């Protein structure tokens, strides 16, 4: 996610015109609001607030709806509370309904995220470090192949992967979800760009001269410098695994191995099946419980992932 095109020539033009424009500066009285600290605009804030409302209203709707009973959902207005405040009942019922299958889905999701996103981040960090800091044959073609593969539609891979995994006896096991999650081309790219910026080659040379092996140099010198990049990649692979729907849909038959996304959808569709019980209040409450951990992670770690992303954009 960088701007590989903006080269030095893009920049030099305005800069040079700035140099020639330094004379008028002497005559201009110093402005209170410079380019760095412009005047705040109420109009612009109001306009941007429209996008803010668009982004937040559905989440507010979800939070309010989670306080309603099944009947309350259809009885009351969407954006205000119903007479009955059923949030705690809904949460209890979500976790206990159908022998606590939601808890099982939550644990499955944690397993997939832990191994899938954790592993994907680890592989991306190692690979990105290699691409950024070592010169080896095939270095450029590796990335060309990886990025080219991103354009391949999910189903083009899902069907043959399913058939392959089915022959290997992996379908309907957690591995069928975890193994494909281990590859994050975006993570590799971000780590490559980040490692190029963040690790001074001199530091690695110094460590080697001091007698550190390659692994020790990586873990003791490089890894600490890569921390914001690692957090960024981890968050984005976490979102990808936590939110994954298509891969488990293809790979898993047994509801006991479902992640939350698949489970919630099965609850929702239950109402449409013959004799199925409508549990929309649980779908809504379960949805809220599903998104809270990720939103919390983004809010708590924003300092790290934002600097990681910004560093990813520095590459020119």
């Amino acid at each position, binding site marked *: 996610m960088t701007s590989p095109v903006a080269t030095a020539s893009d920049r030099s033009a305005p800069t040079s015109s700035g140099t020639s424009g330094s004379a008028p500066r002497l005559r201009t009285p110093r402005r209170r609001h410079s380019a760095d600290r412009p005047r705040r605009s109420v109009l612009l804030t109001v306009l941007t607030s429209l996008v803010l409302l668009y982004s937040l209203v559905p989440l507010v709707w979800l939070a309010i709806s989670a306080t309603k009973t099944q009947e309350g959902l259809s009885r009351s207005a969407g954006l205000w509370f119903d007479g009955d405040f059923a949030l705690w009942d809904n949460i209890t019922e979500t976790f206990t309904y159908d022998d606590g299958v939601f808890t099982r889905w939550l644990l499955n999701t944690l397993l997939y995220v832990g191994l899938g996103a954790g592993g994907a981040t680890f592989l991306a960090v190692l690979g990105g470090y290699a691409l950024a800091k070592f010169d080896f044959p095939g270095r450029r073609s590796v990335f060309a192949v990886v990025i080219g593969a991103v354009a391949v539609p999910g189903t083009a891979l899902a069907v043959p992967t399913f058939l392959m995994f089915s022959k290997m006896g992996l379908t309907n096991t957690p591995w069928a979800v975890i193994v494909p999650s281990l590859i994050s081309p975006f993570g590799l790219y971000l780590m490559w760009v980040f490692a190029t910026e963040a690790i001074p080659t001199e530091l690695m040379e110094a460590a080697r001269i001091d007698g550190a092996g390659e692994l020790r140099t990586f873990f003791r010198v490089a890894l600490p410098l890569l921390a914001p990049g690692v957090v960024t990649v981890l968050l984005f692979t976490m979102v990808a695994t936590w939110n994954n729907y298509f891969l488990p849909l293809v790979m898993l038959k047994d509801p006991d191995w479902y992640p939350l996304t698949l489970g919630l959808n099965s609850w929702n569709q239950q109402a449409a099946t013959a004799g199925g019980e409508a549990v929309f209040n649980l779908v809504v409450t379960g*949805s809220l419980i599903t998104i809270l951990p990720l939103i919390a992670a983004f809010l708590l770690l924003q300092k790290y992932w934002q600097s990681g992303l910004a560093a990813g954009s520095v590459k020119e």
Partner: protein
Amino acid sequence: MTTLQPPAAAEPRPAPPPVRRDRRSWTGWGFLGPFVAVFALVFLAPLAYSVYLSLFRDQLIGGTTFVGLDNYAEALKDDRFWASLGRVSLFLAVQVPIMLGIALLVALALDSGRLYGRDFFRISIFLPYAVPAVVATLMWGFMYGTRFGLVGDINGALGVSLPDPLSPDLVLASIGNIVTWEFVGYNMLIFYSALRVVPHSLYEAAQIDGAGQIRVITAIKLPAIRGALVIATIFSIIGSFQLFNEPSILQPLARNAITTDYTPNYYTYALSFNGQQHNYSATVAIVMGLITMVIAYAVQLRGMRKGV
């Protein structure tokens, strides 16, 4: 898509002296090896297997036989496939410009420093990205519903009758709205991150030269983040062509409007898992993959050209 690599000029240091090269080549692969090994297992092998599958056909009599490019010929004549491709193309032409346009405007507003509460805006607008597509679709599906949705509320409160967002005429736009909601913040963040690293001295210089805000945006900011714009566009194109989650989850709510061949991805999924036509499914998926790559590559070439 090789040109997505940062240009060679971007390497921070000249190539290391040749003396070290032998030792380094081995070490680099040591770190990259695990990624490449898993990548080969979950990307390259299925891809090769997919091509292999597309050359065969399951016959009722005679079992699996080699049919060469027959499946491809069938796909090129398949009206259902072309209809689904037309649908996602229309989606792409309307939804992606709207989404990226809003994302760019918000990113420019954030970057201008003229907003009150900038950080609050940035993080709040980004939040929907953390919501799974399943949850986003279920949520919007409920809100679209006239029974306990917001549309029903608006109709009741204002005494109007808004058209049903899940009707065949409107459901594509309703899906577009869900996708826009999910990804506006993500794209905004990509653009904003790119804008943050444009040196502020450029703005000072432009201001002294008498350039207004609009001129600064068109002459400095947009060219500086062109790479981010191109990459966001490419990812959005790929995303549109791969559309599956939103229509498939909305399907039970909009049975008449959304068929199992609604998008190319949905079609290949249905072919394979409902119809057991694995070979033909693989063929359609490959054709779709090729179309996606060609268009993404064309956009990239055009976008990267100077002075567009």
